[in-house]
């Protein structure tokens, strides 16, 4: 009996030590992963600097015509950094992107809409007048800065335009097809749904490319109806955004071929 108890004690002690050991290994594994991402961050910074400097010639000519509408999803906390958002917009405008959708879940960007539009207009005006605009456009050639003054279509989107919009469209379809005297109720199609979303004010183009600024590669609830075939690229935190990384992401997108399920 004593031997049995002793063996049990030893086994129990071994199990506890084993568990502690495994836990330590798990923590070391996560430490290695964090170090890996730090090293990756430095490598990306170097890569971005090389791209911005024009040394990597393949990025000097980007076929922008493939990007008809670009969406930017920003984590709501980071979206409060209006100056960073403005800087990003001007970079996009300088690359030649003409239609941009700005999304954050809480609607922070919508609330800052006027400030952002005014800021973008000021930068564009400053570019045209050739006045000193600090380091904002230091990565862009003079020829590119001329593009910054061209009109950019901006759309501000939040979660309210996403799932709740589908509920509104559903109510419209209910009113139109069910609350009427016809005995036969129709079978809804995707066209009916698209038209209903449009009618309640939540239509909008499908982005070709969606850039995510935040800690996680995740679309954060961007309107589901609009991202069927959208390429979703994670850019990292907004505070660490780099012009070279932006150019690389757009360049990479222009090389993508989709077969749309066929």
């Amino acid at each position, binding site marked *: 009996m004593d031997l049995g108890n002793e063996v049990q004690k030893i086994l129990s002690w071994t199990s506890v030590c084993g568990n502690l050991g*495994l*836990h330590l*290994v*798990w*923590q070391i*594994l*996560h430490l290695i*992963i*964090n170090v890996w991402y730090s090293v990756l961050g430095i490598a990306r910074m170097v890569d971005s600097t090389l791209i911005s400097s024009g040394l990597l010639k393949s990025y000097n000519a980007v076929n922008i015509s493939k990007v008809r509408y670009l969406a930017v999803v920003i984590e709501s906390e980071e979206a409060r950094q209006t100056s960073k958002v403005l800087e990003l917009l001007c970079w996009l405008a300088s690359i030649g992107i003409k239609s941009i959708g700005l999304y954050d*879940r*809480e609607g922070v960007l919508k609330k800052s809409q006027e400030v952002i539009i005014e800021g973008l207009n000021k930068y564009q005006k400053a570019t045209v007048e050739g006045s000193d605009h600090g380091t904002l456009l230091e990565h862009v050639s003079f020829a590119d800065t001329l593009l910054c003054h061209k009109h950019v279509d901006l759309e501000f989107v939040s*979660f309210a335009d996403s*799932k*709740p919009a*589908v*509920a*509104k*469209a*559903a*109510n419209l*379809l*209910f*009113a139109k*097809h*069910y*609350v009427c005297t016809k005995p036969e*109720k129709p*079978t*809804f*199609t*995707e066209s*009916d*749904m698209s038209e209903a979303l449009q009618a309640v004010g939540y239509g909008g183009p499908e982005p070709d490319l969606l850039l995510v600024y935040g*800690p*996680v*590669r*995740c*679309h*954060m*609830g961007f309107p*589901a*109806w609009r*991202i*069927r*075939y*959208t*390429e*979703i*690229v*994670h850019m990292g935190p907004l505070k660490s955004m780099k012009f070279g990384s932006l150019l690389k992401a757009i360049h990479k997108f222009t090389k*993508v071929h*989709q077969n*749309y*399920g*066929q």
Partner: protein
Amino acid sequence: MVLKLQLQLFKFGPIPNHIAFILDGNRRYAKQRNITEGTGYRAGFFAVMSMLKYCYELGVKYITIYALSIDNFRRRPEEIQYLMDLMLEKVEGLLKQESVVNEYGVRIHFVGNLKLLDEPVRVAAEKAMQATANNTKINLLICVAYTSTDELVHAVQASCQEKWNEIQEVNANQSQNAEITEEKLELDHIIKLVDIERHTYMGLTPDPDILIRTSGATRLSNFLLWQTTNCLLYSPKVLFPEIGLRHLVWAVLNFQRLYPHLEKEKKQF
């Protein structure tokens, strides 16, 4: 046993409850190896079984796979027929006593517009769902004839029909003066968001925590667009038949690393 011990290591952190897979790369895998597309799809099936086993050992409760999109029906008819035949063969195989489904207590769900499937496949699918209805260890959701946009249209239609039936029932029991008429309905708020969510094909399951699309493509191709609001998207370059434990482990480790942020976002909405 070795696998169990290996995966024990990762259980010190949060384990995702639901992992979804887009099975991209079966045809490219076949082309690279100079084998038939059919063999590529079969290799993909084996990879699904491997992922199921790994997820089971990890403690994942829901796995969803994008087996066949409505868009895929635009492929060559012979390819579609092959896929239907393969699905029938594999579903019937899964129901055999010695299969992995019974060994691991897998409950199978077929999710999508099943009316678009050939009748033998639809019947086999319904049989599989019934036969495994009492299994509780892990859920395998197989999306066939599925797209998110079709799912939403279906959910909206079902919500409308449900509300209409409720109104008719109320009116049948009320006197003429108390009937619910068009004037009395608040037509803007009849259908609520929770109604639509309840009627989605995926309505009975929790949203996925991780979505893995192989072959390096960064799009969702009309898959779980509604359910992936707070989902970590991972796109390894590997072709689906070649996906291994290391890819799954990497996804889980990243999920654990980002868990505090993901949970914070989920709680806010």
